């Protein structure tokens, strides 16, 4: 394998001011949050402008990066030194981070613009944009940071933004609960990441990527495996992988643009970023890599199964997001051969999943915020742009030949197949399930009989919402071919993550590829018979054991409740008891002792100068006595 190139310090050009990418949206958030109602009228434009400006900086940095020879395409931008060597803060602009920056600011801009329309009736639109800006800033810090501590700050920042946005309609108890759930489940992962960072610090004495990665081979295998698994735990929390997947479905309580931006296109892929970025650690810890691939495959199947049973269009898409990130995890766990496919799929997924979510939002916008697909049907004629763009996204995600998802997902499946036959075939099975549940979604929404509620008057959304849809769908069509053919993206990423020993060649007719296509076709046809050709009941039938299993999110919540929540509550009760009786007693006693001493000592301070003089004399006597004693010892 060809290893990544060294980081070259850089302070001039656009890259020298690349911190503007983070600062601009952060400034937007600060202005919007601090200015209060005064900026209600134009606040959303400010929010959009900040993200667009950030996008411009990202593109300019990207262009500058491309202008460099390949062995110099890792630029370190030093920003701040706290205690020298202890907590240096800087940015790392390399092909990996800039790919993310472009995705975040590019798709982020489109979603910001879309939100102007989507949130136009919400009295708190300004606050919404402030949080969105905050999210973009934190996410950019996460991917651009050149060390784990700054990455962690961004990591927590996106967690906060996600919490605030899921609970944006906090008057709904379900939204508040979902926000809390997302936060708490993420905490579990965050602790994993934190302990991983601690371990990295104690092992290598640094947290900077440039310092720790070259040393990865020198640490013991056990340490690296532990670091790898802990990083994976962090990644599982943020990216909703098993066993920390349960929050993502509830997170759909947030406004739809949030689901598109944070819970589909960008934030949830942070785990994949973390694993690819930490590739140097995983490559010396094969056990951790194996666990990553297993988690990936398990989640891709679980997500697909859940997605097949949901009637709520957004939850269906959320299951699908889980599943697609599972693919990325699978690829990321394979090593250098998979990194490029993982990130490529991440980017194309960013486009088509944002496309699908925003499409779903457009449908909801026209249907009085109805999310139940059993009350849709036959919407194609009334919202053609939404429908066509949605269908493009749909074709891209199921891997319809020559569309984005076809290239990137097929790349993952082929690589997995070469790596391990079992994983490969399970990934193929997942693709078949994708074909089924996505077709089901399209048929239930746009085709078949109208099952609308009585007061529903579906209509096409305004241009401010449909134009982003069109732009995203263009990405959904062409991006995959552009990235994968000729290994373009793999070569581009090489300075950051290295190259596999032999470059893969894309076959249009490989066994795995054909098998995938066949299974997808079967899934789609099956969906057509059940949901296209047949009538869909307005109330969900009881369904089989498997359906219930999937509807209940594979009993994830029940499992969490019995295994974690109940014992957790007991533990809390015990801790509170211990805290009240034991710790507080000790602390209060100590405080009382100190306070009492203070009160007593205070009486020495009589205010009489004669007693002060006496105390000085006394002190002097003690000082002289002590010195004589020590001196004569």
């Amino acid at each position, binding site marked *: 394998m060809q290893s990544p190139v060294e980081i070259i310090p850089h302070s001039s050009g656009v890259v020298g001011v690349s911190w503007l990418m983070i600062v601009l949206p952060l400034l937007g958030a600060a202005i919007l949050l601090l200015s209060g109602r005064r900026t209600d009228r134009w606040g959303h434009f400010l929010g959009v402008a900040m993200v667009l400006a950030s996008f411009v900086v990202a593109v300019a940095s990207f262009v500058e990066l491309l202008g460099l020879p390949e062995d110099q395409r890792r630029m370190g931008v030093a920003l701040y030194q706290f205690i020298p060597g202890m907590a240096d803060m800087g940015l790392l602009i390399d092909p990996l981070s800039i790919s993310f920056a472009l995705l975040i600011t590019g798709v982020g801009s489109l979603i910001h613009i879309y939100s102007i329309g989507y949130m136009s009736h919400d009295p708190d639109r300004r606050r919404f944009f402030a949080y969105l800006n905050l999210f973009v800033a934190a996410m950019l810090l996460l991917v651009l940071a050149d060390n784990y501590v700054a990455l962690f700050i961004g990591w927590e920042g996106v967690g906060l933004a996600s919490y605030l946005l899921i609970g944006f309609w906090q008057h709904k108890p379900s939204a508040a609960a979902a926000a809390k759930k997302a936060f708490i489940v993420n905490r579990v992962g965050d602790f994993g990441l934190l302990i991983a960072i601690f371990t990295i610090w104690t092992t290598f004495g640094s947290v900077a990527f440039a310092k720790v990665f070259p040393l990865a081979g020198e640490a013991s295998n056990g340490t690296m495996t532990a670091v790898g698994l802990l990083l994976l735990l962090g990644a599982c929390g943020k990216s909703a992988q098993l066993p920390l997947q349960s929050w993502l479905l509830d997170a759909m309580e947030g406004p739809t643009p949030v689901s598109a931006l944070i819970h589909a296109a960008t934030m949830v892929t942070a785990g994949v970023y973390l694993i690819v970025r930490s590739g140097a650690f995983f490559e010396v810890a094969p056990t951790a890599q194996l666990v990553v691939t297993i988690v990936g495959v398990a989640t891709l199947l679980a997500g697909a199964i859940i997605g097949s049973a949901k009637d709520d269009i957004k939850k269906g898409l959320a299951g699908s997001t889980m599943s697609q990130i599972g693919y990325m995890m699978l690829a990321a766990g394979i090593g250098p051969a998979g990194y490029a496919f993982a990130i490529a799929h991440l980017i194309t997924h960013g486009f088509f999943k944002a496309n699908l979510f925003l499409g779903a939002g457009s449908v909801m916008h026209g249907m009085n915020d109805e999310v139940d697909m059993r009350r849709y049907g036959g919407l194609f004629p009334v919202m053609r742009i939404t429908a066509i763009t949605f269908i493009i996204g749909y074709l891209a995600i199921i891997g319809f030949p020559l569309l984005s998802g076809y290239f990137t997902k097929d790349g993952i499946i082929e690589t997995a197949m070469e790596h391990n036959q079992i994983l490969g075939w399970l990934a193929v099975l997942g693709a078949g399930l994708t074909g089924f549940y996505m077709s089901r979604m399209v048929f239930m929404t746009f085709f078949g009989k109208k099952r609308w509620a009585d007061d529903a008057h579906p209509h096409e959304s305004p241009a401010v919402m449909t134009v982003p849809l069109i732009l995203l769908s263009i990405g959904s069509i062409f991006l995959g071919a552009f990235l994968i053919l000729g290994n373009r993206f793999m070569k581009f990423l090489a300075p950051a993550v290295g190259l596999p020993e032999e470059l893969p060649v894309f076959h249009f007719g490989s066994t795995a590829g054909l098998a995938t296509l066949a299974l997808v076709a079967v899934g789609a046809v099956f969906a057509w018979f059940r949901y296209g050709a047949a009538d869909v009941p307005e109330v969900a039938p009881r369904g089989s054991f498997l359906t219930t299993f999937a509807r209940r999110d594979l009993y994830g919540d029940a499992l969490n409740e019995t295994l974690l929540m109940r014992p957790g509550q007991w533990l809390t009760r015990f801790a509170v008891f211990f805290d009240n009786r034991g710790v507080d007693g000790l602390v209060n006693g100590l405080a009382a002792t100190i306070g009492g001493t*203070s009160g007593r000592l205070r009486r020495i*301070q009589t205010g009489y*100068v004669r007693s002060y*003089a006496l*105390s000085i004399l*006394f002190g*002097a006597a003690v000082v002289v006595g002590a*010195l*004589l004693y020590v*001196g004569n010892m």
Partner: protein
Amino acid sequence: MNGTTIQAPTIEYALLSPMLLVFGAAIIGVLVEAFAPRYLRKSIHVPLTLLALVGAFVTTILTALNGLPTVAAAMGAVAVDGPSLFIWGVILILAFICTLLINDDDQFVAQAAAVPGSVDEEEAVRHGYAQTEVYPLMLFSVGGMLLFAASNDLLVMFVALEVMSLPLYLLCGLARRRRLLSQEASVKYFLLGAFSSAFFLYGMALVYGYAGSVDLKTISTAISSVSGQEPLLLIGTAMLGVGLLFKIGAAPFQAWKPDVYQGAPTAVTALMASTVLVAAFGAVLRVFWVALGGYEWNWQPLMWGVAILTMIVGAILAITQTDIKRMLAYSSIAHGGFLLTGVIAIGTIKQDQQALSAILFYLAAYGFTTVGAFAVVTMVRDAGGEAGHLSRWAGLGKRSPVLAGIFAFFLLAFAGIPLTSGFFAKYAVFAAAISGGALPLVIVGAVSSAIAAFFYVRVIVLMFFSEPAADGPTIAAPTVGTSAVVALAAAATVVLGVFPQPVLDLADQAASALFIR
């Protein structure tokens, strides 16, 4: 020295120019008091004082840039070396800021000689008199501080001590409101100061008896050569220590600090809490490191005890204070204790450099923060002048969020929270103390920091999380000078906390050659 002709002493005027400028301006100030009409005096004094301080600062910088001399100036009496110049720079900047505070305040008495509450006083107030001697007095005191920190000779040091202290005794008694309290503070400070000076003087005499000289260099060589007179040196060291420890307010010589800090006009308190502490630590280092450096095994245990006692007494007694200025006084005592842990860290050259650099940085950081905190105190007023009682500060955050926020920030810096200057200051001295082998001391330091954090945070809680009193104090419309003081102090506290490297480097540089002898 067996010649019969008396040689005129050589004086390096260029090296001493910062001091000479300050003293010169002070003398001109006295002349202004004598000859200028009353209504003109203040408008002459203020520019004169500021100019003198700026001039002295500039000459200090120029001296530093010209490269440091390797022998002491003025026939070995004054050591102009790296630490001196750093301390001079800090004292001069702090004095400049304090001048702005003094200038912008009507906190000085109209006529100090008038009996409080008398007809004379009313008369003086009605005529709008002001005691403008404050400015030359302050300059004299500052000049004394510069000399105090740089004296290489016990006799010069004693003179400097008195030049520094005498004007301060007067300044303490000049508060416009609560004059009796102020005069009481002045008398207390004077009596106890005189008392402690006597100790210093006696110690000097004993050391002279041992070494046959008051020159620090000669004393240090005598320690390694003279034998048999041990008790003289031991008692002398103890007595010198008492005199100096009194000035920094170390326990058990701290009793004057709260009373004096409370009674003095707040601007003077700011001056004392910042510059005097800086100068006094300069002198402590000179006596204990330069003269008695080879004698460390004997005085270190004593200093251990003093440092521990100082930190604990400062932190514990601050808890039950109800007056903001008294609380800050105890906080200053505790900080003196933290600084002493650095003084103890003497050892190898490398340890000395680290400890010296840490102490210098600490002095600069603490000086700015403390001036800022007292400047805020001058702005919180009610009918009777400054609202000193802590209960009056309840809910200040609601009424004046910016000011309360800045004050809270200063308090956090005192507590040593990261991203404030106080964090690095503490970190540096504690690190130096650990590498000097004083780990137990650092543990005590950390514990008393924790105790101290309680009363700092308590004030923050009081300001932001309590309901404001109905007749609570108002915030005096800040004048340009006072706002400038608060802004400068806050800026210094932020910058030293976020980008400490330049000043740390400067302190390292100043400490690199240690002291000249």
